[in-house]
């Protein structure tokens, strides 16, 4: 037995694999919330993305290099279409963001559009022919410790790392990112210097939706990888908690996503090793830990310095003062 078979390496590698959808979903939600819009529809948007990706992969035959990128784009479009409903209602019509997001999850989710479309398209017959397989990056997958953890993940994971870097740079190193943060912190100020509040919010809610779509595709094209109703099983909600856990910063969120990816994967990892722990306990761990972590983060001293965007959840009315 080599070091790469040791439990700790296996768990960390699995944490990154299972954490990848959380990274995409939470990254999208960070963008939306940084603009001041909470979108509780993440779970529903993920399922829209999952069903869109699953449809492309199951219907269109072709080389993986063509089918999979198309599937990802369709997943992004599907989820962004869901986000568009939320955007119109919360930004233009200024309705309660909480209830609108819940409505989106009910509309799109386990008993809604996603299962409707899956029914029409007769998905879920079996694993899709084209999946995101593990990529042996630079031929280093057998390198001790770092091989399985860093160099033997799927293309989606590598894409998520690029996305985290891109979003971090965008948020904190570009003018547009500054505008975005200004809109989320003080829309009045942003408006007064000519930053379009509504436009900024629309763009980031839609991009946030597209990210959730990729997160859904992670399930239907890689983790599961076929259509199962409600296959995201609450991961969208965990992504929402990760945004708070990461203090609305992509780098801190990444840590949380892998922590929760690890917790979600424990069941499979430990059972594959024949370690006998009740599966009910292991199933409940990610959900219970979300509550525990949220309580700790909400009361940590850092919260005062790195809080939520000040205008989060509040519609912007130019006339109001």
């Amino acid at each position, binding site marked *: 037995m080599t070091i790469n078979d040791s439990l700790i390496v296996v768990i960390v590698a699995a944490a990154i694999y299972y954490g990848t959808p959380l990274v995409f979903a939470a990254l999208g939600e960070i963008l939306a919330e940084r603009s001041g819009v909470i979108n*509780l529809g993440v779970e529903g948007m993920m399922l829209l993305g999952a069903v869109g990706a699953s449809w492309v992969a199951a219907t269109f035959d072709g080389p993986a290099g063509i089918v999979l990128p198309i599937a990802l784009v369709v997943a992004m479009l599907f989820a962004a279409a869901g986000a568009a409903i939320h955007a119109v*209602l919360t930004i233009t019509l200024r309705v309660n963001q909480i209830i609108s997001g819940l409505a989106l999850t*009910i509309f799109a989710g386990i*008993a809604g559009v996603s299962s*409707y479309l899956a*029914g029409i398209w007769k998905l879920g017959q079996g694993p899709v022919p084209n999946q995101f397989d593990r990529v042996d990056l630079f031929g280093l997958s057998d390198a001790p410790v770092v091989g399985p953890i860093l160099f033997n993940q799927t293309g989606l994971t590598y894409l998520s790392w690029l996305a985290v870097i891109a979003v971090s740079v965008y948020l904190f190193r570009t003018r547009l990112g500054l505008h975005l943060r200004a809109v989320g912190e003080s829309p009045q100020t942003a408006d007064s210097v000519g930053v379009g509040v509504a436009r900024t919010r629309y763009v980031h809610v839609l991009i946030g939706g597209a990210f959730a779509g990729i997160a859904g595709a992670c399930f239907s094209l890689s983790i599961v990888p076929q259509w199962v109703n409600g296959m995201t099983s609450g991961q969208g909600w965990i992504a929402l908690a990760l945004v708070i856990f990461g203090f609305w910063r992509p780098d801190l969120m990444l840590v949380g996503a892998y922590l929760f990816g690890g917790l979600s994967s424990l069941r499979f990892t430990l059972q594959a090793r024949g370690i006998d722990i009740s599966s009910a306990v292991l199933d409940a761990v990610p*959900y219970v830990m979300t509550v525990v972590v949220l309580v700790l983060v909400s009361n940590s001293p850092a919260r005062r310095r790195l809080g939520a965007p000040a205008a989060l959840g509040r519609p912007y009315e130019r006339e109001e003062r």
Partner: protein
Amino acid sequence: MKTQRFGFRLEPRADLPRYINITVPILSFLAALAAGAVLLLATGENPIATYWRIAERAFLDVGAINGTLIAATPLLFTGLCAAVAFRIGFFNIGGEGQFYIGAITGSGTALALGADTKGWVAIPAMILAGAVGGALWAAIPGVLRAFFRTNEIITSLMLNYVAGIIAVYLIFESESFWRDLEGSGQMFPKSKTIPLGAFWPNWSFGGLIVPFGLVLGVAVAIWIRVLQKRTRFGYEMRVVQGAPTTARYAGMRPGRVIVAVAAISGALAGLGGAAAVGNFRQVLDPKGLQQSGYGYSGIVVAALARLNPIAVIFVAILIGGITNAGYSLQGADFPPGLVGILQGLILFCTLGGEVLVRYRLVRTTTPPPPVPNVEVAS
């Protein structure tokens, strides 16, 4: 000020007519049906035929209405659960989990009391157990929100999954007190059936069957209305919702009010869970409970009822009709997922409708008059 381009603007209305309490929900509901029809058309289904089948199986004969009342009973309780909590700005979306816990404690109590207990003891005991179970489960996000400033939306939702896992564990993964370990229960995991004496009654009026749970729910809805409108606690709820700082200055304790409302809200959902076992299922059926999703539908009920407990009664019957039709039509020519789609659309349209009541849509061709900058004398 920037000149406003040609477009639309929302302008607040000065007065709110009373009739909006009725018209908004009705128009929202119709708008949702219209939006659903577009989706059905786009995917090659016939909307009129589909809606007609739903109406038929929901309301158009006695058998359909009986099924609708059965589906409406849990929705009445989960609808009240959401309505009570949302009214004070406590977004308890854990009705689903509180419902499971109520089903677990309710059925556990009925099983523990055994076959010799009379109904007039067993049924109130189940009601109490369900309510207490749901209340304790909901008190967790309540306490975390009130005293640890933790977002109740996520915590209450996470606890839904935990409650579901507990229910599945009790029947499928353990030899618990709830599980039937004799006869066919050895082959296929299932729960013990509660004793006959603990079955909740149904009253028959010439073919129409009214479940005891529904009557209880109506009574509870009226009690909630009185609590909100006629008591000191109801007043405190309004102040805590509207102005937490004022509440604190006035000597109220917003934290306690939040926890109390969370517990009441959870008790209602738990009661619904006990009713689902006592009145209809007579067993603890985790998979069945999870498939129904009564807790999430309760949010739709509460929103369409504009958080009014009395209106919840009628909306629960309406949504119960759709749910019931969804069950009985599930099959080849009825698309799955339609029930959730309609519920989501109803929520969207209710939200949109609220806006069009509070505001007027005004066309802006010219820039609005500048608002004078009033300096506050210091």
